[in-house]
């Protein structure tokens, strides 16, 4: 028995000071060791950050206009920014631009929402259930690599020229990205957090609700962001290939119409519109959400300085 070797030593000593914590010392230390985050600095940094891309865009447009002005190519092959702007205005006045924008945005959004609704439970199951993970994991990663345009011919055969074709292609593009994002988000949850949950007495469901899901949120949002990008791309591919029938007129259809008429300004105008939608959703929604999420957790570049 190890207790045989246990020796007991008693050390006696007189009292020294009363046990009282110096609150001012503590307050001073707290103040010295914390840095205040200031909001104004953050806004200023973001405004300063907006200049370089704006300048780059201006230079690009100027270079483009300059090239067109040299007259090396006929204007109907390489139109200038002003020509494209004119066509865009014309499309806007005719109402075609709005129709195409709203049709595509509506489809993109609806497809994305359905993709989220499918991918979230699937992602959670794949992340948490071992045999599902082992059997379906590689398949889902593979699907993410497959360009969703590859589904267009199959979709046309199955669903004909209808909106179902478009939605099918969008789902095949977005669902694997969101599933993968959620799975990697769950994987990156530090094991320490799960131990904390167990020590605090969380049951299996509480562990998911209060620890796992919030901890996996940054990965999930990154997956949503990529899922949206894939939805939008897949949607454009589907709209370009599947034109006519009962399919409504979207941005992809506008692009395809421009090609059929050999109208280069319409083609570029459609590309610009597609790009603007993509950038706007990114800048107005995903970027702030992700930035806020990371900042609140002290994970963003601003707070890491």
């Amino acid at each position, binding site marked *: 028995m190890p207790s045989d070797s246990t020796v007991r030593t008693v050390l006696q000593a007189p009292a020294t000071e009363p046990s009282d914590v110096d609150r001012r010392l503590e307050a001073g230390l707290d103040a010295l060791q914390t840095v205040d985050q200031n909001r104004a600095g953050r806004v200023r940094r973001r405004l300063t950050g907006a200049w370089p891309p704006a300048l780059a865009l201006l230079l690009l447009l100027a270079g483009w206009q300059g090239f067109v002005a040299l007259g090396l190519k006929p204007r109907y092959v390489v139109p200038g920014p002003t020509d494209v702007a004119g066509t865009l205005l014309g499309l806007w006045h005719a109402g075609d631009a709005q129709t195409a924008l709203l049709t595509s945005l509506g489809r993109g959004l609806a497809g994305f929402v359905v993709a989220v609704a499918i991918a979230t439970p699937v992602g959670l199951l794949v992340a948490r259930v071992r045999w599902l993970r082992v059997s379906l994991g590689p398949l889902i990663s593979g699907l993410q690599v497959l360009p969703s345009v590859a589904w267009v011919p199959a979709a046309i055969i199955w669903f004909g020229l209808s909106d179902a074709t478009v939605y099918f292609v969008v789902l095949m593009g977005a669902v694997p990205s969101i599933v993968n994002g959620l799975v990697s988000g769950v994987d990156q949850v530090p094991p320490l957090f799960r131990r904390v949950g167990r020590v605090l007495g969380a049951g299996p469901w509480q562990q998911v609700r209060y620890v796992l899901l919030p901890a996996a949120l940054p990965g999930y949002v990154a997956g949503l962001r990529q899922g949206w990008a894939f939805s939008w791309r897949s949607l454009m591919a589907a709209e370009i290939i599947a034109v006519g029938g009962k399919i409504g007129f979207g941005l992809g259809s506008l692009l395809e119409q421009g090609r059929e008429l050999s109208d280069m300004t319409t083609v570029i105008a459609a590309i610009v519109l597609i790009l603007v939608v993509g950038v706007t959703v990114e800048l107005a929604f995903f970027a702030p959400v992700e930035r806020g999420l990371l900042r609140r*957790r002290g994970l963003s570049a601003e707070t890491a300085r």
Partner: protein
Amino acid sequence: MISTTTSQDARPTRADALRVEGVSKQFAGTGAPVLDGIDLTLRPGEFVCLLGASGCGKSTLLSILAGLERPTAGTVHVPGGSAALMFQEPALLPWLTATRNIELALRLNGVPAAQRSARAAELLDLVHLAGAGAKRVHELSGGMRQRVALARALAQDRPVLLMDEPFAALDAITRDLLHDELERIWQRTGRTVVFVTHNVREAVRLGQRVLLMSSRPGRIVREWTVDIEGHRRIEAPQVAALAVEITDHLRKEIRRHAV
């Protein structure tokens, strides 16, 4: 034989001491046991420091006491059924504020929603962080984080508080201060504390008893009762004298492993 007895009564009584009897732990596939025949009894409200070199199994013993791992042999009786545990890392959830971290512990402990916010405020005040409740984890200093973690451990409302090298990652000034803090809170709350450390002076500064563990296999080989009345500073000569004696034994223990 493995059995874990639990008790529903959260109030510590003399009969309801923390008892460890013949606890051994051996991980599957590895040779020597990590823990070998650990016997340990803590009076309710006692503060005991577990001291040992790396690999002595002190963290494993703590995990067993916390119910995160099962012993290979022996019995453990923890008053209140389970113990609160503080890690070396603050392990606060970074998406919650200080207050919300404590409230989550209260919620998981079954405290009704109406009482949580008042109780969390009380606990924050206890660790002298009344003004920092709205701050997120990354806005707090290392010392403040550990104080929130302490408040969260107290929110679990268990008679036994286990601490796994909670101040090891802090700078010396902050650590000194947190020793004072912990002593004050221990006296006010009457918790039974098992404090694991590899810092001899820290053990003497805090513990009523200091237990020295051997490594591979982990056994309790020596025990000191620290009987310094009143407030003891880590620089006090009595603390230093005992620390020297304990360090000599610790080194002798480590030398045994030289090949």
